[in-house]
């Protein structure tokens, strides 16, 4: 089985509002998939359905081939879940909490103990393992959230805003943890508002807005959907050149500033040759022509704005 997470026509309705609107997607085994979208887009609702905490109004979803409603417990056996807001019983210690959750996964005693030791070292809570969670800082609780999501050696990990409240040094460590998970073949779905972070660790992306999946695929594929931008520097720019370029069928928008022209394309093909030829034909002299792929922020803003409009 290739797909670790599958959603088909997933819908969640609250009274009169549609939080998730019939979204379908697949996350393949071993992918690190970023799940992004503005506040209220439906990320947390989707994640909660996948974690077995919310019942979908319609549609279905599965984790490791098990339906999250009909076979919830089997689906949860291979799942590690880190909620958006990490809250744990404050009067337990980190060690007690991991032991408690480990028991719920049916992990045998010795194995559980070794796993707890490893995880507490991994998230840097080893020295505070006996302290009650109530005494932990927000960042420490967040780190414990990561540890508890990994207690069962999960095949699929779903993290909702995992780096919220973490200091930069820990965020770097978090990225290493996710990369290590990828090496082990673990599938990770993580939502975040920090796009640069998503870009650094994710192999794939899903963008959601107003409950609908706007785009999905690799970061490169999404950049292509979004279209490229070409910057041209000319010795001098005449109206003839500008008009000729603006009339090319793959040009969506053209901006002129002095001797520089920026062309927004509606194609992903390499059209620099056509552009150069057009410039020469109209008597212009190009000094340089360069293509740039849009940054994730631009892709994100563009795709979410299009849906909003």
């Amino acid at each position, binding site marked *: 089985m290739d797909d670790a997470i599958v959603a088909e026509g997933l819908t969640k309705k609250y009274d009169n509002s549609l939080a998730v609107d019939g979204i379908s997607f697949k996350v393949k085994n071993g992918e690190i998939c970023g799940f992004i979208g503005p506040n209220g887009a439906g990320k947390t609702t989707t994640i909660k359905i996948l974690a077995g905490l919310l019942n979908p109004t319609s549609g279905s979803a599965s984790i490791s081939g098990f339906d999250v409603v009909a076979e919830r417990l089997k689906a949860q056996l291979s799942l590690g879940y880190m*909620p958006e807001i990490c809250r744990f019983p404050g009067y337990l210690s980190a060690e007690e909490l991991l032991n408690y959750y480990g*028991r719920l996964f*049916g992990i045998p005693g010795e194995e559980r103990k070794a796993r707890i030791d490893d995880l507490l070292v991994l998230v840097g809570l080893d020295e505070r393992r006996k302290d009650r969670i109530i005494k932990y800082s927000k960042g420490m609780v967040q780190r414990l959230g990561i540890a508890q999501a990994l207690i069962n050696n999960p095949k699929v990990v779903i993290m909702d805003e995992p780096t919220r409240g973490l200091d930069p040094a820990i965020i770097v460590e978090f990225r290493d943890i996710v990369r290590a998970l990828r090496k082990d073949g673990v599938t990770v779905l993580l939502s975040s508002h920090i796009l640069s972070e998503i870009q650094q660790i994710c192999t794939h992306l899903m963008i959601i807005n107003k409950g609908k999946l706007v785009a999905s695929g690799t970061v490169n594929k999404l950049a292509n959907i979004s279209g490229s931008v070409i910057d041209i520097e000319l010795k001098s720019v005449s109206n003839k050149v500008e008009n000729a370029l603006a009339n090319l069928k793959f040009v969506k928008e053209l901006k002129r500033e002095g001797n520089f022209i920026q062309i927004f394309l509606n194609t992903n093909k390499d059209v620099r040759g056509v552009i150069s030829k057009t410039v020469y034909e109209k008597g212009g002299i190009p000094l340089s022509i360069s293509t740039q792929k849009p940054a994730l922020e631009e892709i994100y803003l563009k795709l979410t704005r299009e849906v909003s409009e």
Partner: protein
Amino acid sequence: MKLSHVWSILQAKLSHVQAIVRAEIVWSMRKRKFQLLLLAVLAAATFTLIFPSLISTFGLPQSLLESLTRELPKVIPASLENWAYIVLFRIQAILWILFIFMAMDSVAGEFEQETIAPLLAKPVSRKEVLLGKYIASIIMVIAILLFVIVYAVTGAWLLYGGQTMINNMFVLLLSFVYVILPFLAIAILLGVISRSTIVTGLGTFMLYFGFNGIQAMIFTGLGMEDSLIAKAFLGWSMKLPIYVINGSPNVLPAIGIIAVYTLVALAASLVYFKRADI
């Protein structure tokens, strides 16, 4: 299905419930509010226990002692050899506060503190979660009552000589615990519906006072204390410890009525909790 497979499923379920019971007990016992209430119970028990000694030691008026032995149930005569009973009778309100506090925090507290999401994302059924929490509450109630009864009997015996309660200690403990069962279940039901400790606590208290006080007042006033209608309400069955001491024939019907209330509340909690969005 092979027997060994059934056994392994059962073992897994038992281990889940056991883990929840353990965590719940540890969590409850470490709560500051719980510790303070337990101290208040002990202080009230100690004060009631030594009250007759204080009166005789400091030569205080006997009317003070009467204020403590007034309105006792008929089966508990106001004498020093019944003093352990009197201690238990007098501190029952604060004991109820402690028990309801424990129960209101167990499910509603998880919702309020948002600790329920990581728990329910684990491969544990909601039935096991509720059962674990319910069993943990019962264990805590038994432990506290056992301690209080032993404390009252030993203290009264040391201070005032042989206590009649010694003969009934075990059945009394069981009947007390049994009377509390429906209220623990009601607290769980209100917890899953309201997800608020205040609503759960107040709701359970109101039902306790409604059944225990208002029901008794109404039906006694109407002279229908043992009528069929009165028996349908939980208040009538809440006198189970008195029926037990008295050797009354009401014991079995009371046990049945309490069981019905408990099972209905638990079943309703489960139905609601299973469908609940977290």
